């Protein structure tokens, strides 16, 4: 079951986004002065990669098979190892370059980013077969908001920076990771896919957004 489920995954998107994230993060590792700008972008790309793991172009067929949503989500969650490994590679490169980052907080941010992308995809997957494009875009915009808009960074940070007066990213990620775990559990196990009257064509590829 594991192999066929994984074979059906959106691997080009997951691997492609993870690869681009490694390039962006690698530049952040190579240029320490740019790390606080490029590593958040790298993590946002990994979150987008996580959002694509649940994409199922044949959802109209797959969703009525005896394999339940819990089992399918568990199997697809294995694909999260790709963005997680890419993030770990970037952090390892940064550590080897001798960067002085708060590693515990950065690792927490990496896990949180990936889990957030996956959790939102789980929730949206209950409505559409391919949540990746919509969720990926939304997650990237939300995660990059503190980097793009300083007004937002005064209140919330998604990446730890050495600013004693600024908000801590840990205070954001711990509750958010807990919320993501609950969202994944509820969306995969508790909710049945809602049957929308006449929604069959909406879920087809290309018309879902």
């Amino acid at each position, binding site marked *: 079951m594991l192999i066929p489920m994984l074979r059906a995954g959106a691997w080009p998107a997951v691997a492609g986004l993870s690869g681009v994230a490694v390039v*962006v993060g690698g530049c952040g590792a190579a240029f320490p002065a740019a790390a606080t*700008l*490029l590593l958040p972008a790298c993590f*946002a*790309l990994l979150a987008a990669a996580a959002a694509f793991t649940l994409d199922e172009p044949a959802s109209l067929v797959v969703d009525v098979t005896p394999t339940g949503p819990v089992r399918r989500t568990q199997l697809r969650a294995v694909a999260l190892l790709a963005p997680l490994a890419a993030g770990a590679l970037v952090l390892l490169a940064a550590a080897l370059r001798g960067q002085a980052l708060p590693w515990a907080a950065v690792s927490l941010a990496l896990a949180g980013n990936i889990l957030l992308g996956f959790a939102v995809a789980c929730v949206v997957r209950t409505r559409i077969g391919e949540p990746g*494009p919509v969720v990926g875009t939304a997650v990237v915009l939300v995660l*990059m908001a503190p980097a793009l808009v300083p007004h937002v960074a005064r209140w919330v940070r998604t990446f730890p920076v050495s600013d004693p007066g600024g908000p801590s990213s840990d205070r954001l990620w711990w509750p958010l990771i807990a919320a993501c775990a609950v969202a994944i559990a509820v969306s995969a196990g508790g909710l049945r896919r809602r049957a929308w009257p006449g929604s069959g064509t909406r879920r*087809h590829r*290309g018309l879902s*957004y």
Partner: protein
Amino acid sequence: MTATLTFGPSATSPGRGTFTALAARELRRFVLNPVFLSAAAFIVFTQSLGPGGETEIDGLSPYPAIFLGGFGMMATYWLTRSMRASEPVVGVTPVTRPVRTAALCTVALVPFACGCLTLLRFVQLTPVGGPIYGPFSSSAQVAILVGQIVMPALGGPLLGVALGRWVRFPGAAFVLFLLIYGWVSLVTILTMWHQNSALVAVLRLFAPFAFFSLHSDAGGVTAWRGSPWFFIGWQLALCAIAILVALLRGAEGRVRSRIIRALGIAGVAAVILLVLAGLGGFTHALTA
């Protein structure tokens, strides 16, 4: 009967009226796009806040580029891609794909107009000639603002149309957005280290958006190398390339060869303007 078929193209070939109708429809779709609406709302919000305590224009000017250009690119990318599913139906209509692409390109006028309005408001809040502009002349200050506020608002949506016509991956727009963000951040930091290097100046300007100054900790604003006027020319060449690349998809026969020829000319012009932008202006960093 033969004469009717040969000389009666008005029923089958689209004229200006068809193009206008298509453009109006695409404009309406773009203006109602939630991504563009949220971007426009944020620009209104940031412009209502005013300059605050900013010590250089680079702290304020990236917002229109991010929201009108970056978000505009995502909106037009989705707008273009949304027609893919109906391509088998739309493809048999008398209107060719380049004409439909051209109609899509006209939506860039909306963020361009928003960019112009933002520029006017920006100049009203932060008059040209102020100390936060650094040692640039008045005309160069205007050129910097046009290059940072108006041109990205035009080029971003055009890039989105070209991307939507050629790239199938549905997340291409946000990937490109992050890549441009990462590149601009990286070359800006490189410029801080090598302020007088011509090569680094060209690298910094090899982007659809570039910073031209930096507020130094010792006080004053340091102007970097590069000509803001030639940078606008480079940005215009990028816009032309984006339009031509978008139009190339689906073009056939003489139209295709004309587009390819125009692409070559635009490419050469872009390279020349980039080099001139990198070598023009101040020959070394200047603080004032």
